[in-house]
């Protein structure tokens, strides 16, 4: 697939042009920015992420694992009398349960994100423009077929102060 890319220097320009190209019916391949731009997900029409449900699931798993393991260790396998407390007492389980809930939720969603974004340690980033990690805001559009009207897109980009536009042949990203 061929891509069209345009470089902007200002996030307001980027937000404006994103809304305009989406309204004109072009499909956005992706947008590369040096930092998270507020309101961009809305302008791109992205659906809310489902990762938070996954996080809840992992955290709940952590809760169950923590309570069951402490119950098994503390009152079945190796009961120890600590300060005369009953072997099976919920208050004593609370700190570990809290920590494991947070740990499972945090670590779980971290790996889920890596998996979904196809990231791994040591992966080489393919960048449209190295300055997208720095000070450039880059919009890339899919060139699907002949319905892609490069003249209109170009004029939209120029109106919004695009610094540079180009066409990337074959999906190099």
């Amino acid at each position, binding site marked *: 697939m061929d891509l069209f890319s345009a470089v902007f220097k200002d996030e307001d320009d980027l937000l404006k042009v994103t809304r305009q190209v989406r309204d004109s019916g072009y499909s956005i391949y992706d947008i590369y920015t040096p930092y998270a731009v507020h309101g961009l997900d809305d302008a791109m029409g992205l659906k809310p992420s489902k990762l*938070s449900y996954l996080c809840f699931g992992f955290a709940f798993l952590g809760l169950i694992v923590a309570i069951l393991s402490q119950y098994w260790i503390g009152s079945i396998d190796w009961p120890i009398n600590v*300060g*005369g407390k009953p072997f099976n007492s919920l*208050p*004593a389980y609370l*700190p570990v349960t809290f920590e494991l809930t947070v740990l499972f939720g945090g670590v779980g969603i971290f790996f889920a994100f890596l998996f979904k974004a196809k990231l791994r340690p040591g992966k080489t980033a393919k960048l449209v423009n190295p300055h997208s990690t720095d000070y450039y805001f880059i919009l890339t559009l899919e060139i699907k077929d002949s319905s892609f009207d490069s003249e209109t897109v170009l004029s939209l980009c120029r109106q919004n102060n695009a610094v540079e536009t180009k066409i990337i042949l074959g999906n190099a990203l």
Partner: protein
Amino acid sequence: MNTNSNSLAIPKAVQKFLLLLIVAGSLTFIAGLFLSPRRIWGNFLITDFYILSLSLGAAFFVAVNYASNSGWVVAIRRIPEAISSTIWLSGIGALILIFGIHSLYEWSHSAAIHEEVSGYFKAWFNESFFIIRLVVYFVVWIVLNRAILANSNRQDKHPDIAYTRKNVRNSALFIIFGGIAFCLASIDLMMSLQARWYSTVFPVLMISGMFLSGLAIIIVFVVILRHIGYSHIFTTEHLHTLGNYLLSFSVFWVYLWVSQHLLIWYSNIPEETSYYIFRHFGGWGSLSFLNVVLNWLIPFAVLLPVAARKSDKIMLQMAIVVLIGHWLDLFILVMPAFLGPEPSVSVWEILPFIGFISLFVLVVFRRLRKSSLLPVNDPYLVESLPDSERIVKSRNF
């Protein structure tokens, strides 16, 4: 055109009703002084500390957002500002409370307690020093809070970033000295009710409850103003952020509640457990359970999905749940000393409390009318309200 007011007004009927409640509350309080003095003083302490929590919670909310240079809060800032301007109300309450010291605090009249609890106890807990301290706390809160509000209002007339810079400094001072004052005030007013009992995490638990209830009252006012036609300046985004705050501070409150409870339960030292043994069985036990349900379980479970934090109706319900929960929190803290082993709620609990709350609502609305609902010249306004330029020009607020 008068730039320093708005058309906000409470309907006459509501105003009359609130005035009626204030009169009924004060009459019940006076009757209680003769019929059931210990119980009425305990309840007055709860009521006064409750109002103090609401106004100080809002004051800390304003200060925290100034000190951190938060942009999002600017469009709704006049609401917490108006709520925080009522610290003087609980200050007057504290002056009345001075007459009840002997009914409330055992240390004020028992010689035995001073021999039992040694060290610096006597130097700290005596009547005159107690009164001086109360005055100092309120002076610190009111002076610093007034300074912040005055700069914020002056900025409406004179567009100058210097006012924002001054307020960042004032807010930092307020957070440090106001925070220390509140820690000491919670020890003086609340923890010293049972002079033999102490807990080092107690002031922090009180701070979390204060901030949580402050957030809840801000949300109530935001939702009311959105409902009567200000939803273009108090937007869903603001409601959403306030919801995030409410959710996280509800968790913070229960974290500290468990911290205090767990350590006392684990170490099992008689003078520490005496506090919880009373609150663990019978009616007080059920109320303690309800306390955690209202302040944490319900808000946490309901506000977890993001859609709930953007809904006016759900946010209002959760804010009211938290406000009831905070009263219950203070009720469980104070009243076992006055009611004995079984809790009961009567007219002494309800009417004076509702009377004081009505007075609080009237004062906040009067303050809201006084200044413009939008800090029009705040440099961060556009961050909070992307459409601010058009709204300020059309004077539609």
